[in-house]
């Protein structure tokens, strides 16, 4: 009985050391030093260095009300009510460029990347999310306040949904046969439609808007008009 207990304890310690080691290795891989930056910053560094195609607007925001103001979106923590993220807002001209680039990308993507390759991309994407679910979960908690005991589950569920959708797609987009008639072969072919715009707001008024006028004046106000 004593030996069994001892063995269990030893195993527990070894597992703990392995987990700690894996954790540290993982952290070192993600940043230059063992002392890590906050997660989101670290990921963004990786994001910027790994590829350039993602659109990150930095331009001065032009509004019809006052074109001289830069718009910065500030995310307020639900846990502390302190600012936790800031992002520059996109200007209409940047969005137009973004849409043109998306059209060009769509034409190539839909013609040259096969369904099997697209499924593979989605599956690898799901694997990537799942591998980082703990860190990504903590980010959800930071931005939304949902307890950390639940948030990695959302990431894992998302990965599972992505795989599920990949498993369905062949059946869903296969040709639908038409009414048989001698001398004809009839079918309905399903094709992609192009560029899809996906809009996600949250409820009105959760967010402070800070605007900086050219004279350096900082204006802070609440959103009241964004679509919710």
């Amino acid at each position: 009985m004593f030996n069994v207990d001892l063995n269990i304890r030893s195993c527990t310690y070894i597992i703990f050391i392995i987990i700690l080691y894996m954790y540290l290795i993982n952290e070192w891989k993600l940043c230059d030093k063992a002392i890590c930056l906050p997660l989101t910053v670290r990921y963004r560094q990786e994001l910027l260095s790994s590829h350039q195609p993602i659109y990150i607007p930095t331009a001065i925001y032009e509004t019809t009300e006052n074109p001289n103001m830069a718009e910065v979106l500030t995310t307020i923590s639900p846990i502390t009510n302190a600012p936790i993220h800031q992002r520059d807002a996109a200007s209409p001209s940047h969005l137009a460029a973004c849409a043109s680039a998306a059209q060009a990308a769509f034409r190539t993507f839909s013609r040259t990347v096969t369904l099997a390759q697209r499924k593979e991309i989605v599956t690898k994407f799901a694997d990537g999310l799942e591998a980082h679910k703990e860190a990504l979960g903590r980010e959800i908690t930071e931005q939304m306040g949902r307890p950390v005991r639940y948030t990695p589950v959302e990431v894992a569920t998302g990965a599972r949904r992505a795989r599920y959708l990949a498993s369905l797609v062949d059946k869903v987009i296969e040709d639908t046969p038409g009414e048989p008639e001698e001398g004809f072969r009839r079918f309905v072919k399903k094709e992609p439609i192009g560029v899809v715009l996906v809009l996600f707001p949250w409820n009105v008024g959760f967010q402070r808007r800070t605007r900086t006028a050219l004279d350096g004046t900082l204006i802070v106000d609440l959103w009241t008009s964004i679509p919710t």
Partner: protein
Amino acid sequence: MDQYPYLTLINSIVPAILTGNAVIVKPSPQTPAIIEQVAHHFYQAGLPTNVLQYFHSGSPATIESLIRSPAINHICFTGSVAGGLGVQRAAAERVVGVGLELGGNDAAYVRPDVDLRWAAEEVIDGAIFNSGQSCCAIERVYVHESVYDGFIAAVRDVLAGYIVGDPFDEKTQIGPVISKRAREAILAHVQDAVAKGARDETPANATFENMPPAGNFVKPTLLTGVTHDMAVMREETFGPIIPVAKVKDDEEAIRLINDSDLGLTASVWSKDMAKAEELAGEIEAGTVFVNRSDFPAPVGMLKKVRVGANNELGSCMDGLEKFGARGYAVEVWIRSVHEAQELPSEELP
């Protein structure tokens, strides 16, 4: 509403990419880093340049400029009814598909034949998980009069054991709501209900009385004696509030459930599967559950049977089927009560 940022992003983006489309995303300003992570992992997985892009904005005028652009071929919006109508108006000037996922005021009906403790645990979880901030959260509860007192006692008993607090603490079950303004709106619903005769029957709970002062915490609140004159029953409260009304029979329950202009989901709690399925057919909601409610929490998707013309992920299939217009299919999910109690806690929806 973007209360589950990974799930909602994946529901929209993955079908579009699988079917060969390009995607531009404007995320919620509350969770700006999530789309950055999603894009990062897609490009790491080999997605070609510019197939997935995103931008940050809080300006309706700027967003509308993109909605009006002929370079956009389809628009998906997730948010409130007012926001969805705004998107639809902007898109109405040209021929373009619009998909809207809007709010709910979802009802639960507890029939007399349920295990009250189990039903109380499930209904509370459905109502206050994620601090009640889910479009599919239970917003109002109707209980048959013959089990009403027992159900309220069970709810009080379960709520007494809940833990509200720092969301980074592994023990915490309920964190803050998203903003000060959201907190004020939720508390206004409670005050309106109490002013009109509702009773706050929330049990004593040390964590409810010692919530962290800096955050936007709202204690889980049990309201009884509620009526449809109160905002808490007519509008989407989007907070950890459990308003419970007594009904005399199935007919009254169905009438009250259908007395709403929102019909996202609803749930019936009963051991009589045939009766529950019959009642599900009378409820005017897009998705009706029997013995479960929907939320991305550690609740199983095993042991239930889905009946109906739609699919598990309706909005996703929309995407897979060329982002076409969705019909008015009704979705019914049924879970056996006995089997449900054996669900592994780590199973995911």
